[in-house]
């Protein structure tokens, strides 16, 4: 595919890695924010090719992992109601709530549909006027524009049977939460390339200044990741706390203003609970008053949800990069991908799930 394959070119990646080896003289701890970046690193075996002095820690950039237990339980409660068509991105279906997940709810007869885009959920609402169509609007700033767009479209079409269950989170407060933690080991960030395509990276200048760390906007293909790491190490080795862009074909400093306007028309900043981490103030997006009609939490009367999260799970510390998954006492014993205790073992972008496959392989199952 054009503009993907070229950034997977083996020779170019090797050139870049060779340079990285040449310029890395000290040990560094770098966090890649985005679950998609973690995925690409693991899938391409990139971490094996990096200099040993570079330690990559995985950030909380997986909206599937960090959607609060309470919201998952609300999703289950809504989806279980008659005459509801509950639409979701595929990867949310297996996230366990306090009891069960959307998959098992579907097995017992609820109408749950996987969609590629919330705009397809709006179409489903148009085609099913007798049903309430609810879309599980998870995501970071990358997904906020299209989630917002679905509300604007439903509004323009005067649909009274479409609503969204909002679980939007934003990156900069999470970065600050990580950096201000006493357990923090992160010395630099690879910022999430597609979030920055929307938001730009001007927000990171104050963070870089305040915490004295470099931040480099990074893409997802092997060459992009090595490029981001190269620029980061270069800054670290020189002791420079700057913000740089290693994904210039997609990202500009101010981002996509039209997309930001779409977000701001529909959403406003709210406090948000991150599964495994806790409440981070003003780290989420919620619907503005004028769009309250499309808020599924208000449209459906759901009895008080009491959630039950494992007390043993330390995914919060894993998400902040301060503990490696295989140092958790529950790892691989009572907490496995088949029986996850927490967020990071649930999603395949989650660090614990990734480590499980790396550490266990097939030996323990045979």
């Amino acid at each position: 595919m054009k503009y993907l394959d070229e950034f997977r070119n083996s020779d170019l990646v090797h050139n870049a890695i060779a340079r990285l080896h040449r310029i890395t003289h000290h040990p560094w701890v770098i966090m890649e924010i985005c679950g998609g970046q973690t995925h690409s690193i693991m899938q391409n075996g990139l971490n094996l090719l990096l200099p040993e002095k570079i330690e990559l820690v995985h950030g909380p950039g997986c909206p599937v992992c960090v959607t609060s237990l309470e919201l998952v339980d609300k999703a289950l409660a809504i989806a279980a109601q008659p005459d509801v068509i509950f639409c979701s991105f595929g990867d949310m279906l297996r996230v366990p709530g306090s009891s069960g997940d959307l998959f098992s709810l579907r097995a017992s007869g609820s109408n749950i549909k996987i969609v590629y885009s919330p705009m397809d959920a709006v179409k489903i609402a148009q085609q099913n006027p007798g049903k309430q169509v609810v879309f599980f609007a998870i995501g970071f700033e990358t997904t906020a524009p299209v989630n917002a767009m679905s509300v604007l479209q439903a509004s323009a079409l005067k649909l009274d049977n479409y609503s969204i269950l909002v679980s939007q989170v934003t990156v900069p407060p999470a970065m600050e939460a990580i950096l201000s933690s006493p357990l923090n080991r992160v010395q630099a960030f690879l910022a999430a390339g597609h979030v920055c395509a929307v938001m730009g990276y001007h927000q990171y200048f104050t963070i870089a200044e305040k915490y004295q760390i470099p931040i480099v906007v990074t893409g997802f293909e092997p060459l992009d990741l090595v490029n981001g790491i190269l620029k980061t190490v270069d800054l670290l080795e020189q002791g420079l706390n700057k913000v740089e862009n290693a994904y210039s074909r997609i990202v500009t400093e101010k981002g996509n203003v039209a997309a930001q306007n779409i977000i701001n028309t529909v959403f406003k900043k709210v406090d948000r609970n991150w599964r495994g981490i806790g409440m981070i103030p003003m780290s989420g997006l919620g619907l503005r008053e004028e769009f309250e009609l499309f808020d599924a939490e208000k449209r459906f009367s759901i009895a008080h949800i009491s959630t039950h999260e494992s007390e043993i799970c330390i995914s919060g510390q894993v998400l902040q990069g301060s503990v490696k998954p295989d140092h958790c006492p529950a790892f691989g014993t009572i907490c496995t991908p088949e029986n996850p205790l927490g967020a990071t073992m649930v999603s395949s972008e989650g660090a614990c799930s990734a480590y499980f496959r790396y550490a266990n392989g097939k030996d323990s199952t045979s």
Partner: protein
Amino acid sequence: MINDLPNLTNPVCAVPHSHNDYIVMGHGSGGGMTHNLIQKVFAPHFTNSSLDANNDFGIVENTGKNRLAISTDAHIVSPLFFPGGDIGRLAVCGTVNDVSMSGAEVIGLTASFIIEEGFPIKDLERIAISMSIAAKEAGVKIVSGDTKVVERGKADGVFISTSGIGYIPEGTDIGGANAKPGDAVIISGTVGDHGMAVLTARGDLGLETQIRSDVAPLNGLIHSLLLEIPDVHVLRDPTRGGLATTLNEIATQSEVNITINEASIPLNPEVSSTCELLGFDPLYVANEGKLILILPDTMAEKALRILKNHQYGREAVKIGMVLPDPQKRVLLRTRIGSNRILDVMTGEMLPRIC
């Protein structure tokens, strides 16, 4: 050394929640959950040396000279008709292929139908015609059948179950436990076509593609191969769970490691693009007209010539080797030259957003 290798974070997002009490979709995916279900629920009660060999076929002795290979399969595809085929063609080819992977000459099939009340008879006839065409192409007869009807809502249109029987020529020993260190691993053509054809045909994802299922009977191809190369070690068609899962099965049965080269795996560009869009890995997507061939490396060139000479093997390519290490793992040499573990699929592959 192997322990240093990073493992694939399976591109299926959200690893399955434990489902101990009820069947969920992941149990039917062909990956880890299916395997566990079979081991826990069926194997203890059905155990015998034929079944426990874990091939796609079972071998039984009869009073005559030859061994028989028997296979059975149920087909529940949705939509029933998709570009490149339909449930009928799938039902015939699937079982013909499974029996043929033993090296057997398929001598007959059975077909049983569970039909939903309200299903249009003209569609049923369309399926029957398709089965007839596939069976003729494969040179096999459907010799027995059964039909049942269930109430509306109790079946997805129609379910078809087929069984097949074949005679294994004397001296033929092909099976998943036979891969030997130093063997070449060959795939007969592009991977992921069937799974992506069916998925995009459902229409839920709004994708417009020209992808066609590869569903085809491979007994003719296998016959051509075995005529000239009797010393084939393993034949298997990578159906549910895809190439990665099937290679893992073979690695486990043969107690070897298998290494494959990502850059050499043949892919239809449209299948590749569709997988990128949805976040799928084509190595885990089902195929219904391809086979994995494992044989002594000295015979690899010859095998490739024979395969490429056949309509169902035109894009055959050697993709890897069998290694002597007994960790029963599949290793992928990535496009960028690193080596990582290629695991089995767990649960169902879902379009992801991350």
